[in-house]
Every structure is written in structure tokens, then in C-alpha cells.
């Protein structure tokens, strides 16, 4: 499993944002170091293109800077807010991009996150697993990606997806059950070859 990436306190983010709003550029640097890699990865998974992911990451961070002065601590966590902003920016880009892409090349209309995953998989089994992840319902897929690729804890995933820990556990259990079924079928097909 990847190392836990959400180890720093999210309250620290709000404090840093308040310091930034007061003119502390050092706080901006710390926030950038902590948040930008995650934002970039999220955008990259959704868009599958590094240059576009960079543009989205910059845009999302710019919105954070502009929001800093009006940030109301305690209403939302900075990382959760940024995750949603990034997600929405990516979906906007995918929608804009779609008319120029042949319809048969559009893998997933709502959230093409694992298409990038599928491309980078190194083995047939990994590619099959990536396709199975792609076929999962959206919330199951997002929970699974956050758990297994971002290494987030269930409570942190719950905050991101705005649901309880129990709901996250349920999403993950259903996702895993579906993946196990899909991969068993896949192996039967391979076995018959």
C-alpha cells in the first residue's frame, strides 16, 4: 500500500490559509508543497494528460488563493474543497473536449479517471483490473481510487466524498466484491484460451 498521504492535520491547512490571507507568503509555499502534488495527481487521473492536469492544478490553486480572504474555518476542510474544485474543473474540460473527440474514443462520459490507469498498467491482468475499476459505479470507483492509489484512510475518504465512514466501508466492500467477480470471469476467459 502507498504511504498515507493525508497525514498532516487538515486544520493546519485552514490556519495556513489564514496566514496566507494575512500576507504570509511562507504559508503559500507550505500549502503548495502539501496540496499541489495531490491536486495534480487527481487531475492527471481524470484527464490522462499531464499538460492539461498542470493547467487544472494551477487553476484550482489560484481559486484557493482567491478564496483565502473569505475562507470560513470550520465550514469545510481545505483539502475537501480543493478536491471538489479540481474534480469540477476536470469535468468541465472533459465536456469541452468531447465534441472534438470521436465518440468511440470516449471511454467514460462522467469520469474517465481509470482510462489513464488502464493505459499505464504493465500487465494484462492489471489492464483487466483497470477496466473493471472503470466499470464500477462512480462513488465506488472514487472511494477505491482514494483508498488504494492515494492511500487515504476511510475517515479521510468520507470527508472527501461527504459521507460517513460506514458508507465508505460499504462502498469499498461493494467495489471489491464487484472487482473480484469481474476478475474471476476475466480469468475464466483467459483460462479457456
Amino acid at each position, binding site marked *: 500500500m502507498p504511504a498515507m498521504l493525508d497525514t498532516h492535520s487538515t486544520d493546519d491547512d485552514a490556519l495556513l490559509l489564514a496566514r496566507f490571507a494575512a500576507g504570509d*507568503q511562507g504559508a503559500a509555499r507550505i500549502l503548495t508543497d502539501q496540496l499541489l502534488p495531490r491536486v*495534480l495527481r487527481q487531475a492527471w487521473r481524470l484527464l490522462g494528460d*499531464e499538460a492539461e492536469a498542470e493547467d487544472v492544478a494551477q487553476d484550482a490553486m*489560484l481559486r484557493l*488563493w482567491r478564496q483565502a480572504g473569505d475562507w470560513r474555518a470550520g465550514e469545510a476542510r481545505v483539502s475537501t474543497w480543493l478536491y471538489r474544485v479540481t474534480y469540477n474543473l476536470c469535468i468541465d474540460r472533459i465536456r469541452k473536449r468531447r465534441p472534438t473527440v470521436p465518440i468511440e474514443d470516449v471511454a467514460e462520459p462522467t469520469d474517465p479517471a481509470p482510462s489513464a490507469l488502464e493505459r*499505464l498498467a*504493465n500487465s494484462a491482468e492489471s489492464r483487466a483490473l483497470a477496466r473493471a475499476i472503470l466499470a464500477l459505479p462512480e462513488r465506488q470507483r472514487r472511494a477505491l481510487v482514494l483508498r488504494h492509489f492515494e492511500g487515504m484512510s476511510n475517515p479521510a475518504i468520507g470527508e472527501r466524498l461527504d459521507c460517513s465512514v460506514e458508507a465508505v466501508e460499504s462502498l469499498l466492500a461493494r467495489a471489491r466484491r464487484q472487482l473480484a467477480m469481474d476478475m474471476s470471469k476475466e*480469468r475464466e476467459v483467459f483460462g479457456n484460451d
Partner: protein
Amino acid sequence: MTDKAPFDLDAALAALAIDERAARPAVSESLQARVLGDAAAAVATAAAPSRTPAPSAVRSGGFRLFGLFDAWTGAAVVAVALCLAIGLGVGYRAGPEVLAQAGLGDVKVAVVAEEGDGLFLSEGML
């Protein structure tokens, strides 16, 4: 015939995660510089004095009339009141013959008889 090992989902997910991590883009220096540049610009914009004056309850150049109206509404109220006062005053002094010369005297005579000159004349003006 060979038995296949049972599918290990955790191992497969871990292998895929390894592939994913190997392919992850790193934050480039140029991206970091752009983001920090945006941050500096955002702070500078927030710190700069605003070009637009703070909104005021009283519009510019204004005063409050009895604490009720702002400048332009107050000026309009004063102007209407002055016009009424001047009209009443002039009409009162001119007398009914002025209106009679204008062909309105007969119409207002009944009003004069009932309510007095001042009111008659003011009605004539209005």
C-alpha cells in the same frame, strides 16, 4: 492441466498502484513557480487599496433630509414642495380674475363659494 492460483485482489490492486505511482507526474519547478506567482499576485491584489469607494448609505454628494432621504430623493421632495408652495402663493395673490381672463373663472366659481379663494386659486393653478 495446471491449477491457477486463486485471484488475489489486494495483490492485483497493489501491483496496479505501483504502476500508477511510477507513472504519476511530479510537480515541475515551472508549475510550482506559476502557482506561487499566482499566490503572490492574489495577496498583492487583496492588499492594494480598492479603486472603488466603499459603498455608502447616502449617495455621493448627498445629505440626509430629516434623516429620511438621500441627496437626490431629498432634492426631488424639496423641489416638489417648493413648486406647490409657489403655485399656491402666486395663485392666492393673483385672485380669481386672472383665471377668469384665461376662461377658467366660471368653472371655479362654485369652488370659491364653497371653500374660499385660497383653495379655489390653488385648484386653478393645479
